[in-house]
């Protein structure tokens, strides 16, 4: 086994084990089985898959993880508290642009004429992610305070508006983030390991381990980073939702009156969960920005960043974190798969009209919209139902 296959295998084992731990049913043998299957799958994938396919799988998994994280964030808002947030795209964009502005180096000299931005702090990746979380929390708080004490449907109208306005700001304000031109050169964490120059803060054995990788293999490293982030977020959300706080959220959602009678501060609880979900969306935005390197306002279209996330959560099962993540990957798979489908039906469309093949992409919208309508009509609880009892002290009764 050559060293390149070995290192790729080691990197692939981590996401594979985590995926298995998510998919397998919650039995005592879950963790050992996940480790064994994941390890085998990781090394087999590294050794047997052709490089092109492997690269596609890795990029698919990275985008799937971004969406799974958005879906988790929406789940704390909609699934557990019943907030109708139709502005996921807004918080996603705020996270992405904040992290980008914090980590990019401010342009100087000639470059400053082509790229304008309010500030570029040249900070490390983790600082960028933390800043993204903080700024989306602030934005969410500002939206939540006037709206959340009112009827639920007002939140939907307000958030759809906020997302649109955030997009307009990044489109029009050149001084802020170079809009409408893209913001380029967002640094990637651990990029130094594959570029050949040594990361001074990394221990020697890690540098030696990553040595054989070329810049083309960088997405593998990023996949490990993002799946670790996703796992941590998943565990935090899962823990929070099973805690007394999470059960209070469900009480407020299901019966506001009796929750209030039991002394729960309804408005504060709602604001907390809305901000919590927005923080997760902001982190997802930061991870997205550092993956794609170049972002502009058009990435945060309501279709890709709000509507798809809703389809994911509704399909997976609202009120169920496992369902949210699995739904994220399934719908991202459907969305990516329909790209092949539309190119397949293009010749057929050409027979009907000359214009149609160019518009084949919109058939994907149509399919996804029908998917959501179908879920709402026929299975609103999604693939995996919400658990009735979430406290670990009551399990098995």
């Amino acid at each position, binding site marked *: 086994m050559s060293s390149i296959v070995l290192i790729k295998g080691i990197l692939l084992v981590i996401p594979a084990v985590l995926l298995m731990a998510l998919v397998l049913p919650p039995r005592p043998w879950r963790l050992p089985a996940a480790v064994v299957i994941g390890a085998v799958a990781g090394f087999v994938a590294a050794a047997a898959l052709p490089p092109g396919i492997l690269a596609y799988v890795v990029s698919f998994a990275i985008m799937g993880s971004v969406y799974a994280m958005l879906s988790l964030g929406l789940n704390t808002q909609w699934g557990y508290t*019943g907030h*109708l947030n*139709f502005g996921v795209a807004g918080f996603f964009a705020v996270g992405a642009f904040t992290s980008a502005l914090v980590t990019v180096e401010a342009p100087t000299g000639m470059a400053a004429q082509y790229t304008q931005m309010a500030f570029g702090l040249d900070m490390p990746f983790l600082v960028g992610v933390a800043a993204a979380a903080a700024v989306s929390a602030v934005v969410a708080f500002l939206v939540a305070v*006037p*709206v959340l004490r*009112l*009827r*639920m*449907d*007002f939140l*939907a*109208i*307000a958030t*759809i*508006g*906020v997302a*649109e*306005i955030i997009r*307009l700001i990044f*489109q*029009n304000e050149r001084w802020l983030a170079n809009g409408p031109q893209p913001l380029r050169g967002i640094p990637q964490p651990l990029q130094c390991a594959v570029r050949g120059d040594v990361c001074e803060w990394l221990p020697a054995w890690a540098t030696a381990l990553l040595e054989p990788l070329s810049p083309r293999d960088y997405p593998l490293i990023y996949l490990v980073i993002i799946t670790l982030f996703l796992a941590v977020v998943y565990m935090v959300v899962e823990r929070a939702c099973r805690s007394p706080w999470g059960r209070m959220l469900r009480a407020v959602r299901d019966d506001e009156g009796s929750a209030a009678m039991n002394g729960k501060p309804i408005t504060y609880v709602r604001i907390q969960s809305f901000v919590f979900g927005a923080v997760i969306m902001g982190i997802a935005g930061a991870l997205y920005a550092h993956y794609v390197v170049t972002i502009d306002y058009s990435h945060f279209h*309501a*279709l890709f960043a709000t*509507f798809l996330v*809703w389809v994911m959560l*509704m399909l997976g099962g609202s009120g169920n974190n496992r369902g949210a993540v699995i739904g994220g990957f399934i719908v991202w798979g459907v969305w990516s798969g329909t790209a092949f489908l539309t190119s397949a039906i293009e010749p057929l469309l050409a027979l009907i009209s000359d*214009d*149609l093949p*160019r*518009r084949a992409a*919109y*058939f994907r*919208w*149509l399919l*996804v*919209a*029908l998917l*959501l*309508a179908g879920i*709402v*009509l026929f299975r*609103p609880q999604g693939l995996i139902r919400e658990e009735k009892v979430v406290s670990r002290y009551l399990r098995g009764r």
Partner: protein
Amino acid sequence: MNGGDPANTAGGMVLREKRPGERLREVVQTRAFLLVAVAAVFVALVALAWAQGVGGERLLSLVAWGLMLGGIIGLGSIGLTLVYGVLKFPNFSHGALVTFGAYFTFALVALLPQGQTLRPLSFGWEFLVALVLAMPLVGLVGLAVDRVVYRRLRNQNAHLVLFAMASLAMAFFLRSIIYILWGPDFHFYYPGRANPALDLPLGIRIRADQLFILVLALVLMAAVYLLLERTRIGKAMRATADNPELAQVRGINTERVIAWTWMIGGALAAAAGTMYGLSSQLRPEMGFWLLLPMFAATIMGGIGNPYGALVGALIIGVTHQVSSAFLDPTYGPAVAFVLMVIVLLVRPQGLFGRSGG
């Protein structure tokens, strides 16, 4: 209701000293205070425009354009507020109905024989015929969506949020059909046909088409008024919007009322879309851009109140145009949004809603 002093009781009700917060809320949540707040925003915008060196004549023109835009938004939001009142959910696909109206007129204009241009307007008779035909067609689209999606949800006694989500799905569904049928590029009803501005007294410069839009909006609104006040179905509609259970008890056929609501709402949305397309151009997202102003007008006027929506729409339209004197006009939705947030903060039931709602 705690901490009060139950000393004086009158008619079975406990009277007590009001806390300062409650007293403040009572002052703030009045219609007058909301009007003052909205007026303050407007005056601030005019002052800002003045400070940027925008002349009085231009401001007057902007107000005239704002009334036209308000008419367009108002026609759209009448349908939105009727659906909100009768069916009790925010219909996020209403913007798509507006877009459909504009494109149906576009398709019909291309099919009909081209007549003489009605100077100084930029269009001929075929445009008016197309508009009249497009209005019931869009009503039928709304009705068809209701039959396939919303009626099923009604029969399941689904929660409001599922309706809202289904309407979001339908918004994307209808928009994708528009993209498939007409493509993503923008269109004009009459490409390259000039429509110079007329010079009216007081230095107001306005195009003949814009005047036509204003007149048509007034005519349609008068028709809506007659329909709601004078016909049986209109009265039934208002009764259902006000209190569906009571309306049903009094023998009103709710399903028939709902069907009429979609027809009227769709027809007015078609008119709004066509006029918006005439005043600028046709794009697949045009209805989505109008959605936020329409919702703002609906909330400002009080949900379920078509006249309130109209007043709200005129306020929003004028504010939007005046703000465009110094702000990028693409920020129009943001202006509408700020007004909406003010309404939600001050008086969530809107200008004409009952207090305590």
